[in-house]
């Protein structure tokens, strides 16, 4: 069977499991012919799947639920990432040491569906995001760490497995940085999950294919976690950049995945949905936005 997977981002170790599964023939063993489409900052996987360009996508829960409300019947069928990798980092010699110092400062945030955890957090802290002395000024951050190096922002968003290491490469030592990790603060929203269309899932044949797909993918993840260097090499072969960086990323990603069983933890889902509701990113409690049917059959 043919399956098209749309990634959320460019080819990098963040998606190593899928590349490994393909490269190592796990998909083929399961009788699947999988095409992996890399993403990028201008690609909304939700749009791709709505337009019929993909069968299954890697997406964050925030984006998926927002799209669901707009009529794209996305359903979470598996959640390989147990923890969120996003954090906010500030230079230790800067003005911000704790949450209490945010007032009146500029914070770099990613948008394009990645801004929800930040706004949920600020909401919790009771800080306005409209700037001014009592709030924070939000800078729409490009997908790199320049705003911090250029001192355009006092803190910026990074992923543990990616931009954080760019800062380290740029000469910051871990002790030079103050880190606010969304998972540790309990503010995390579910990241890279696998989503498919509701109406297609009603077709048992498709559901069956998805079971095979998720199973083979998790086998890929398992292999990648066990052989990080080889996995990084496979990513490089598929268009990744900077091999050392990919190796490090593989290591960090392994921490977020933990046990590769792909099962969604309902509490994490509830927390995500509530945060989105609180910020009015979605207006009503989502129904049927996830299913354990696929993972149960594995």
């Amino acid at each position, binding site marked *: 069977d043919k399956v098209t997977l749309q990634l959320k981002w460019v080819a990098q170790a963040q998606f190593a499991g899928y590349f490994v599964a393909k490269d190592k023939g796990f998909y083929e063993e399961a009788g699947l012919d999988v095409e992996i*489409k*890399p993403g*990028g900052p201008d690609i909304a996987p939700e749009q791709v799947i709505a*337009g*019929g360009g993909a069968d299954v996508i890697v997406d964050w829960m925030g984006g998926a639920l927002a799209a669901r409300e707009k009529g794209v019947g996305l359903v979470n069928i598996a959640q390989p990432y147990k923890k969120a990798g996003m954090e906010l980092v500030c230079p230790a010699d800067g003005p911000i040491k704790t949450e209490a110092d945010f007032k009146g400062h500029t914070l770099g945030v990613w948008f394009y569906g990645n801004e929800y955890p930040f706004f949920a957090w600020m909401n919790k802290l009771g800080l306005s995001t409209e700037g001014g002395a009592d709030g924070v000024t939000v800078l729409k951050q490009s*997908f790199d*760490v320049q705003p911090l190096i250029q001192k355009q922002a006092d803190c910026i968003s990074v992923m543990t497995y990616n931009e954080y290491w*760019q800062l380290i490469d*740029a000469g910051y*030592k871990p002790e030079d940085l103050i880190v606010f990790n969304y998972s540790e603060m309990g503010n995390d929203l579910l990241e890279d999950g696998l989503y498919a269309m509701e109406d297609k899932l009603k077709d048992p044949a498709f559901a069956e294919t998805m079971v095979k797909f998720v199973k083979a993918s998790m086998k890929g993840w398992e292999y990648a976690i066990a052989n990080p260097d080889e996995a990084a090499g496979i990513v490089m072969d598929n268009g990744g950049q900077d091999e050392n960086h990919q190796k490090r990323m593989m290591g960090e990603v392994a921490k977020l995945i933990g046990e590769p069983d792909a099962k969604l933890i309902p509490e994490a889902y509830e927390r995500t949905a509530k945060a989105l509701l609180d910020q009015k990113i979605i207006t009503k409690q989502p129904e049927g936005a996830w299913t354990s049917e696929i993972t149960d059959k594995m």
Partner: protein
Amino acid sequence: MQVGRFVHDRLLPIGTILLVIVLAWYVAAYAMNAPFQRDTDRRAGVTPTSSEFLVKTMSQPKPTMPAPHQVVENLWKNTLTVKPWSKRSLVYHAWITLSATLSGFAMGTALGVLIAIGIVHIPALDRSFLPWIIASQTIPILAIAPMIIVLLSAIGITGLLPKALISTYLSFFPVAVGMVKGLRSPDVLHLDLMRTYSANKVQTLWKLRIPASVPFFFTSMKVAIAASLIGAIVGELPTGAVAGIGSKLLAGSYYSQTIDIFAALIAGSIVAILLVTLVDLAGRFVNARMGARQP
């Protein structure tokens, strides 16, 4: 004589200006890289001498502003030391972009000329269509490029064509605007002459309007080719940065590899200048064929 003129008219001025630019560039590189270097040194607890410091600002791995020699080195490495068709070669990426640019440019020019011809001849088009063409151009292409690519790939069109279409979209407009003016630029007397022959519209177009619009045509094409290049690069972004100058830019910016960005930019501009020069040469050739007075 020929060589001497070439040196005097081309090499010398270009060389001088390049030299000035390179010097300014070094100064800028120093100025922009210095603050970060100071921070790094402070964190590392070292106090370099000023000459050491200068060298450091010129050799950061991810500088704010890469120094010219870093870019040249990168260019060298990525063009001459790898096989031109390997994925690491800028030549390969430049070729990908160039092919999309050229096909987009060809389609855009053809479309622009057709639209201009329509507007000049059909009053209904002039009145109803032109305002909407203008409006269409104000739609930020980057916003809808992903949608276009998604839609096209949904109906099975992938590869060169979607990129070329975005190029077309950006490049037809300068041509259309310029050609509307150009096709309307013939002398009133010459139009009268064609009237006395009761020449039909096609003949007037072919024998009078098009030759008279030649200066506008080539000028518009130069602008259009630059626009096509932008279109091709924009079109490369939503395809997941697989190949092309656009993908190199994108990949470079994910990892703050400023040197890569600059190298890709320079590769892009070399492609651009090549294309603009080609159009310019074609313009000169046609002009000479049309008996223009030699300066």
